[in-house]
């Protein structure tokens, strides 16, 4: 893995786009009662009784922005982790833009990128298994 540094410049890049996305999502989760909307339900779960991989994401986001981290991670661990990373991206993006910070940028080799993708797939599978067990065990 090669570690490079971004230039010290005020330029809207992918980090800022991610931060903006995270900030918008978390603001919506904070101020819009999305889960109470009549259209907001899982069609997959309604028809099969089994949760989809995304089940619990709304609760996770809602828990995060209201400071109920345990509830958030219990609802969908990977979703809660992604929410935390989005929030972190928002903070770093603001700091970078304000102070023209140079940030470290890891550039993985092809093998490392492949391993990373495999790890992500495994994490998604493990997260889905957790959601299924929770749902089928009647924990939510």
């Amino acid at each position, binding site marked *: 893995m090669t570690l*490079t540094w971004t230039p010290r410049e005020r330029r809207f890049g992918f980090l800022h*786009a*991610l931060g*903006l996305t995270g900030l918008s999502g978390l603001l919506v989760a904070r101020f819009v009662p999305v889960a109470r909307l009549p259209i*907001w339900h899982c*069609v997959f779960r309604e028809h099969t009784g089994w949760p989809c991989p995304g089940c619990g994401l*709304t609760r996770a986001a809602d828990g995060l922005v209201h400071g109920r981290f345990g509830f958030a991670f219990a609802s969908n661990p990977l979703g809660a982790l992604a929410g935390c990373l989005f929030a972190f991206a928002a903070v770093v993006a603001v700091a970078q833009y304000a102070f023209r910070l140079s940030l470290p940028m890891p*550039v993985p080799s092809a093998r490392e990128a492949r391993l990373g*993708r495999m790890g992500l797939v495994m994490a998604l599978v493990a997260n889905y298994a957790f959601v299924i067990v929770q749902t089928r065990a009647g924990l939510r």
Partner: protein
Amino acid sequence: MEARCPRCSNVFTTDRSGIQFCPHCGQQIDVPVPPGGGWGAGAAGGSGAGRFSGEPPPGGTPGALPGGRDLTPWERRREVGVVKGFFETWKLTIASPQTFFRTVRPDVPWTEALFWAWIIHAINVVLSLPLLGLGLSTLMLPQNLPSNPNVSPEQMAAVMKVVTAAFGIGPVLGSLILYPLLAIIGAAVMHLVAMIIGAGKNGWGATMRAYCYASGPYVFSFIPCVGLLAWIYALVLRIFGMMGIQETDGFKATVSVLLPWVLLCCCGAAAALGFGSLIAGLAGAGSGSRSF
């Protein structure tokens, strides 16, 4: 000529100056102009270079990059004219997307493409307003109007027409203001997926340009029912855009574009909203002609 990447320090061979990507670390770097140099220096420049300007890159007439990539007519609007540049770009994206996206440069500031897509959205909003004013958004409100002994059915119908028009126009006008934010969010999600599956080698700006230049079909989305087809065609154009600008294969481009929507559909929201809107649109159009 040879250039050294200031980040990974590797030396590579290039046939042009200006903003480009290091073949070793993939970072975007600015190769300085050699003595007596070419036009490409600073084409993408710093944070504001070329932003909404339509000016060709400094140093002379823009020429095609290796691989046949060139500025779009919209990005050459100072040279070809704003209207012609806009329309030519629209025509190319709609009629020959594969050819167009293969020739779009990934290194030009994405604000140019965003500006173009914003105008497309503005045209759609302007064309939508008369239809919304006719009450075609009635589907979003209950069809059984509350009866009031003090108000005649005709008066109630008139009131509802105004209410529904406002109900439809509000979000549409709001979307006009929020369009850049929504486009950035959409492209960020697409690029995140692209990066994960290894389809984002030309950087975030290239994805943003693919996302924005794929907005051409939205000109027609004000027409009931055709709007759905326009949305589907825009998705197809995004796939072509990712293939062409990010130089990736069809499978990875399709996954980058469709995976976020699949995830949304998992939550049921997108499917419910889309289907509900379709049914409501049909019902609203029907009831609109009957009631008003």
